[in-house]
């Protein structure tokens, strides 16, 4: 009996020595074990680095035609290539490799910035709606419902088609217009998600406890509610980034994306499409990069979701 007790105390002491592990630590441990997710994360990290260093590593200017450059010269493994252009030149004789490198900038920026905007707007809106509740919630959510029902890709097309050639459409090579279009429709998903979380969280005891000891409302929202909504926000971020990358690629492929002189993978497919029958490689290269970055983000997103919400994965 006594032996058993000392043993028990021993294990308790042992347990007390190890550091307490939080939700985030557990999630990180689970994510690290997921090989696909790590592979995705590594690829995304490489793409971010490439996007940053593109201006320094690109062998040519992506927009100007080098001296004596011919259009449509094939990549180095094909006959008739020009040694100055490793991956050949496009229909306007611009260096393909440089354009591909620069194109990563558009993809990264177009994934991350609209996501950041929608997170901020959606979080504030969702917190407000969920916390106020009742009639206010009803009114605020009606707006969300209407925007949510608007088919977003259709909206992007209309927005791009209308404002592409205005002064606003030319800001930052067309990126500002894309950010705006993505943000206008994107915030509602985030707002819905957070509102739902707030609605269930605010009924819980620890919130009631905080309020009953006189913690001010803003503090309850920021210190108690918001941290508890982080997991779903992060999961939703990891899926929203690739969806914007894909939307940009799709719009640019239709000729409705960034301005023509901004190198983007989607617009490179668009530019090379007419010559597809005899030089399909110029269509393949940018589309393969689009596919790879999508696959990487999805693996990472799946991993993050499984790590943060282990019940959902099985």
């Amino acid at each position: 009996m006594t032996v058993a007790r000392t043993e028990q105390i021993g294990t308790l002491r042992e347990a007390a020595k190890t550091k307490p592990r939080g939700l985030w630590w557990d999630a990180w441990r689970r994510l690290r074990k997921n090989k696909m997710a790590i592979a995705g994360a590594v690829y995304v990290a490489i793409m971010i680095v490439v996007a940053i260093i593109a201006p320094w590593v690109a062998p040519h200017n992506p927009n100007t035609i080098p001296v004596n450059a011919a259009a449509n010269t094939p990549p180095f493994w094909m006959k008739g290539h020009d040694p100055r252009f490793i991956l050949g030149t496009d229909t306007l004789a611009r260096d393909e490799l440089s354009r591909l490198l620069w194109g990563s900038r558009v993809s990264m920026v177009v994934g991350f910035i609209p996501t950041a905007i929608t997170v901020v707007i959606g979080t504030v809106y969702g917190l407000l709606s969920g916390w106020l509740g009742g009639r206010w919630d009803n009114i605020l959510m009606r707006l969300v419902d209407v925007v949510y029902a608007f088919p977003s890709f259709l909206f992007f097309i209309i927005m791009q088609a209308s404002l592409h050639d205005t002064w606003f459409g030319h800001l930052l090579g067309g990126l500002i217009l894309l950010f705006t279009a993505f943000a206008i429709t994107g915030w509602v998903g985030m707002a819905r998600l957070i509102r739902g979380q707030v609605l269930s969280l605010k009924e819980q005891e620890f919130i009631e406890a905080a309020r009953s000891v006189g913690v001010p409302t803003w503090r309850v929202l920021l210190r108690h509610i918001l941290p508890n909504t982080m997991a779903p926000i992060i999961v939703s971020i990891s899926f929203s980034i690739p969806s914007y990358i894909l939307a940009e690629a799709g719009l640019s492929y239709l000729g409705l994306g960034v301005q023509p002189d901004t190198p983007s993978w989607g617009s490179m497919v668009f530019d090379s499409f007419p010559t597809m029958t005899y030089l399909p490689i110029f269509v393949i290269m940018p589309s393969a990069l689009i596919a790879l970055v999508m696959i990487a983000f999805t693996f990472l997103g799946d991993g993050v979701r499984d790590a943060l919400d282990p019940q959902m994965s099985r």
Partner: protein
Amino acid sequence: MLRYIANRVLWTIPVLWLVATVTFFLMHAAPGSPWDAKNAGKRLDPALEASFNRQYGLDKPLMTQYVIYLKNAAHLDFGTSYQQEGTSVFDVIMQGFPVSARIGVLALALAVVLGVPTGIIAALKQNTWADYTSLFAVTIGYTLPSFVLAIFLLVIFAVDLRWVPVLWTDWRSYILPAFVLGVGSAAFIARLARASILEVLSQDYVRTARAKGLKESVITMRHVVRNGMIPVITTLGPALAALITGTIIIENVFGAPGMGYLFIQSIVARDYPVIMGTTIFYAFIVVLGNLAVDLTYGIVDPRIKTGS
């Protein structure tokens, strides 16, 4: 239930109104005039332009045009095309709709035929090679962007192997677009079916059925698969809507003369009435798809009915 349906149906009106309004004002904010397209992108002679404007009511103040448009649209009159003179917008949409619908329905059929069995088998044989193989295929299927897949297949089967025509010709042209769209949805359906079946397998009523000594095949067919299909069935509506709207890019890759192709053509040509009409039509399909989920949920799963 009837009130609920009526409420949901009425709710589509403000959505369609918003779509029409946003499209209308955005479109008119674009620089230049719709007649430039008739003159190779150059400005028409001012007198001619003014007469065109008068003919189509574009000389009136914007707000007046908007009110007139809404009034006509409420009577399902969407005007006539600028490009195909004398053809009503409805007829223009109906030129493309059968092509899009055929692609969409073929794709959905393929998605169901591929996706449902894959999902069910993966779930029933959880954590076996069958599960892992299908899971891998499914992950690739839903991650690979459909237009990238479309371009790859076009290069392989049309340009290199010449099994199907590069340009849109006959029934063979439907194979690739339907396949491309179907694969993506199949992956989505398989994922959903797998997750749903796994959840049903852990339910008490399945254990009860086992405890009663029912045959495994009966349990699988009657209890597991039937209940596990509820979420799958409810997504078919929006899936079809997504397929029909998702074809915008795919139709342009394959040059399929469907709604999406005509839509982009009308945007390039600044054909206002066709842009408006197609946008509203697309939005209508999507809204209808979403409506279908809400309603089918009530029918397939009676537990939800009382909720709202």
